[in-house]
């Protein structure tokens, strides 16, 4: 027996939630579909492949104030930022949820990044299974699946006019009242099968391939923008700067990526990673070797956004296959 919720009940539940909490859901903008706070239920998009940016931006915002410093009468006081509002992130795909779980490994490791932790603690994730895979998807090769409930609090799977409901955590149970659910005999539909990318044993081949000329050849066409890192659910590099205005100082962190030319440039000009090849190599090594060594998992959720947005078609699936070949592993 499975539990289901009708579309009507789902929308009315979301309507009640948005009165008490910040409800973040996929919405239309004058550009692409993005996760945005909604003020009315009609704004929620239910029929979409995936958002242009991952849900990461609601936990690790593109720009976030860390603290304020105020000096009065020669005395300085520091006021840390805090996250106050309870939130619900609705419509998150399993790949994005997996992405958050990967960022957790880095940000929640001692000492925990408290702002990120507050965002995570105060948000409930209501996931939406994928009924079809897009050409760029490869989540099943990265330890998750189109119907993976592991990293969300509630997982919904669309079936005709209703949604199958899986309550995954206590947080999820507390959010969704039982009386909206129906018992049903409907069978969960089989999930789609995205193409497979074999990343088995990739760490070892990466270790061998560090000095390969492959990286500077690949980097020939890379333009070193920050797109791949910014759309990625698992990238988390950031920059910190101070702002001064009207006597108050604000310390702000913003997204940055290892691709930007000045990423490792020290004051005085020394830059150990000045070449294009070295910078592009860093991205793949962080994801496929360093992160797995530190945290036990490849830093990729298989969402394929980087594949879609890269202006010059640097395709991580192709890179993985090429590296496997360089390492002498004949993988399909």
């Amino acid at each position: 027996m499975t539990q289901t919720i009708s579309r009507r009940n789902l929308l009315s539940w979301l309507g009640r939630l948005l009165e008490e909490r910040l409800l973040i859901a996929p919405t239309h903008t004058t550009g692409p579909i993005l996760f945005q706070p909604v003020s009315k239920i009609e704004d929620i998009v239910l029929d979409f492949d995936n958002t242009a940016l991952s849900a990461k931006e609601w936990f690790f915002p593109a720009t976030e104030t860390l603290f304020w410093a105020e000096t009065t009468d020669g005395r300085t006081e520091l006021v840390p930022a805090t996250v106050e509002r309870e939130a619900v992130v609705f419509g998150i795909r399993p790949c994005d949820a997996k992405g958050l779980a990967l960022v957790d490994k880095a940000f929640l490791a001692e000492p925990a990044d408290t702002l990120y932790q507050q965002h995570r603690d105060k948000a409930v994730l209501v996931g939406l299974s994928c009924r079809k895979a897009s050409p760029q998807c490869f989540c099943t090769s990265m330890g998750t699946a189109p119907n993976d409930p592991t990293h969300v609090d509630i997982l919904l799977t669309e079936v005709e006019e209703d949604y199958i409901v899986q309550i995954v955590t206590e947080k999820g149970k507390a959010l969704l009242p039982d009386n909206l659910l129906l018992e049903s005999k409907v069978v969960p539909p089989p999930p789609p099968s995205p193409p497979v990318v074999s990343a088995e044993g990739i760490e070892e081949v990466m270790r061998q391939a560090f000095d390969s000329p492959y990286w500077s050849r690949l980097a020939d066409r890379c333009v070193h923008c920050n797109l791949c890192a910014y759309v990625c659910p698992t990238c988390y590099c950031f920059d910190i700067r101070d702002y001064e205005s009207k006597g108050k100082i604000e310390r702000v962190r913003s997204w940055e990526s290892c691709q930007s030319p000045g990423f490792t440039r020290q004051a005085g000009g020394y830059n150990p990673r000045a070449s294009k090849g070295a910078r592009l190599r860093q991205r793949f090594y962080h994801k496929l070797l360093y992160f797995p060594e530190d945290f036990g998992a490849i830093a990729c959720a298989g969402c394929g956004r980087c594949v879609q947005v890269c202006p010059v078609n640097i395709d991580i699936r192709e890179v993985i296959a090429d590296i496997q070949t360089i390492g002498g592993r004949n993988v399909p």
Partner: protein
Amino acid sequence: MELIAVEKPASYPDKERGERLNQQLRDKAKELLERGAVECVIGYERATDGSSARPFFVYQPEEVDRLIFDQTCTHNLVKYLLNKKDKTTAVVVKPCDSRALNLLLNEKQIQRDKVFIVGVVCPGIVETGWNQVSQTLQGRCQRCRQHTPLVYDFLVGEPPAEEAPPAEAYADVAEIEAKPLAERQTFWDEQSKRCIRCYACRQVCPGCYCSECFVEQLQPPWVGIKIAPPENNMWQTIRAFHLAGRCSGCNECERVCPMDIPLSLLNRKLEKEVWELFEFQAGLSAETVPPFATFKKEETLGIGE
């Protein structure tokens, strides 16, 4: 912005012509590499989606068969010459790209004798992205007035027998100009809200080559690192001003923007102003100095007159 679907783009009415062009291109690339005239040929190859294109750097004659040219070849390859300053390189250019080349030659960023220019007669490029190749010509191509590159050492392709008249150059710019100030403000605020400062626009632009971009300078902090509307507005506006009189109109900035911000409107607004004030279009020749890189005593700007 309403795009006009063009059923039969000018100049590639048949597959045979396209194949001839591709063969000419590959033969030339092979010859250049075999006789060591160039270290590398920068062209295009098919992308991993099997339908769009991506830049391709050929170093070995055996690789030339991967080179393609067709209506998906949207990238402006001229930018890459800035990474190859100490080598002799061949580059495939469309007419808009050749204007960017002229700019870089004029601004002494590349040396003419270090570049072998393979010009392509361009039928117009379609709206294209990863796994999204359409039949519709890009806006810049509908407005395009030059199907043959302005500078080249070798030309591939045949000029068209007849050309469709180009679309009106500034119809969409005029539409925004006609709006009252408050509406224009709202329009651009909506756009800058979505900007994530990925700098893809800057990185693909041949005109943006400063070793330290103004947006990254600490002293003074012209624009902060906050990814927020006021800073985003400053970023987009100042970049457009730095390109005034220099932008070649390749529109790659707009194509690569992940947030669908209509960047070309800003660049073309300034292009229109520069035309009206100075009767100057960027990149028509490597000799003519852009208006903001020169000063003539007799100049007036129509201000205060």
